[in-house]
């Protein structure tokens, strides 16, 4: 081993170390750029007025995103109400039945569903829930509605919730279940009173992640919730949401509407950011030390 060889190898190692540091930092750059740009563009547009008013017709100044805010909240809440129970139950089923045939197919379909493009999900919801159809005694009137939008979003939430529930519960030791069973607990109580409470932190983080995912989804809502210039709380009728508003107003020629779009973008960004941070904090706080 001569000195020159060692120097070369050390040099290479040092160089690679720095390359890794630089590339890791480079990952931060897009996020920082987006944050910076949007904050700068949108911060001046946000005020109380902005948050509680609906958009004014073209030409009038002022206006706000109240209908989009309320709409987003209602649509996401409805989507959660649909997706969370189904997702958790499916996750519980998968973690309890590792090897059954049904479990195999459920897992496969979940994985496939995860990869389906969001616009395709939207189209499917359009065909099922928006177009009128007749099935003998059942007559579906059709029409754009917040509910159909929620259904589409729920379909996108499912794979995330199912997977994270399954993974969380799989990590729990068998001894927990055994202890509960040995105390004479029927199976459903073992799951809902012991297993799920202990794994609640992981399950909840899965739910939060799925909400964060769909908060900004636009494509599925394009032909389901459709959008609404007025504030509405009727889930059977079209409803506005933040991404839809941004989509529509950002490409319009009116400066008023452009301003609204910037402000809405910032609100959306902050919402997603807050949701992610909140998830992390809650998960750590509620994590049960096994």
């Amino acid at each position, binding site marked *: 081993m001569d000195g020159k060889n060692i120097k070369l190898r050390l040099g290479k190692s040092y160089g690679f170390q720095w390359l890794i540091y630089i590339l890791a930092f480079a990952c931060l750059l897009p996020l920082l750029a987006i944050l910076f740009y949007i904050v700068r563009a949108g911060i001046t547009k946000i005020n109380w007025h902005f948050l509680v008013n609906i958009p004014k017709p073209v030409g009038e100044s002022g206006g706000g995103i109240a209908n989009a805010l309320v709409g987003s909240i209602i649509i996401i809440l409805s989507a959660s109400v649909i997706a969370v129970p189904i997702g958790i139950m499916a996750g519980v089923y998968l973690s309890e039945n590792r*090897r059954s045939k049904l479990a195999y197919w459920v897992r496969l379909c979940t994985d496939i569903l995860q990869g389906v493009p969001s616009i395709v999900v939207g189209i499917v919801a359009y065909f099922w829930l928006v177009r009128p159809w007749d099935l003998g005694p059942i007559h579906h009137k059709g029409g754009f509605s917040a509910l159909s939008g929620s259904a589409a979003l729920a379909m996108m939430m499912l794979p995330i919730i199912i997977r994270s529930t399954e993974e969380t519960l799989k990590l729990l*030791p068998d*001894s*927990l279940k*055994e*202890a*509960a*069973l*040995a*105390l*004479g*607990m*029927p199976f459903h*109580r073992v799951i809902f*009173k*012991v297993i799920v*409470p*202990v794994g*609640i932190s992981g399950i909840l983080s899965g739910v939060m992640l799925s909400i964060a995912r769909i908060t900004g989804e636009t494509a599925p809502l394009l032909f389901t919730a459709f959008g609404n210039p007025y504030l509405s709380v009727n889930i059977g009728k079209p409803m506005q949401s933040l991404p839809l508003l941004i989509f529509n107003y950002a490409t319009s020629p009116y400066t008023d509407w452009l301003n609204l779009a910037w402000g809405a973008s910032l609100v959306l960004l902050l919402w997603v950011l807050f949701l992610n941070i909140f998830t992390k904090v809650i998960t750590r706080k509620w994590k*049960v*030390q*096994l």
Partner: protein
Amino acid sequence: MESTIIKSRNFNASFGTNHVVKNVNIDIPRNHIIAVMGPSGCGKTTYLRCINRMHELIPGASSEGEMKLNEEDVYQMHPIFVRLKIGMVFQRPNPFPNLSIYDNVIAGYKLNGIKLPKAERDEIVERSLTKVALWKEVKDSLNKKGSFLSGGQQQRLCIARTVAMEPEVILFDEPTSALDPISTSTVEELFTELKANYTLIIVTHNMQQAARVSDKTAFFFLGELVEYDETKTMFTNPKDQRTQNYITGRFS
């Protein structure tokens, strides 16, 4: 006249085609401590789990033969009732990590949806913790989670949880193999006290423990019950050569 609390006749258990417990006939007397020992894979743990019907929870597991608790066949009863009468303590202490010590002891009632008045609950908790010599140590921290307890204390908490349900029989699956020697001896002291009110069946790898704590010992080998006798006799003059080879450590 001692009565028999658990009786097995021609009892067999399998995992699919793997026949692990072969034709076991045994009478377990009330208020005794029975040790069950044998080399790894001899079927002792499987047999134990058959007593309170935990064995059948494993997919592919099956059993046949008679297993009677007080003359009632355990396999004709609802498994929930069986497990309320026959409790189990496991190898690794497994208190519920999300519940406080108080809630852990009362877990058998609370999580089963059995509502009790607070006074009764308090009484059960105090009584159970006293029985396992844990009351004085934890009575001021009943609301804390059990994670600060040592291994031996956690195991005693699990025993308290089982005892709170007032079973007739308590099964122990290698209860001290995960504990240090001092914790082991505190748990072993418990056995002699628990004997007065319960029947204990202890599966153990530790022969000296079997010799120390039990009244009778059963030796399992390759799925069969080879010898079942008074512990004193088993360890001074066993009848079967296989038993002798095992306890003198002659297995290569």
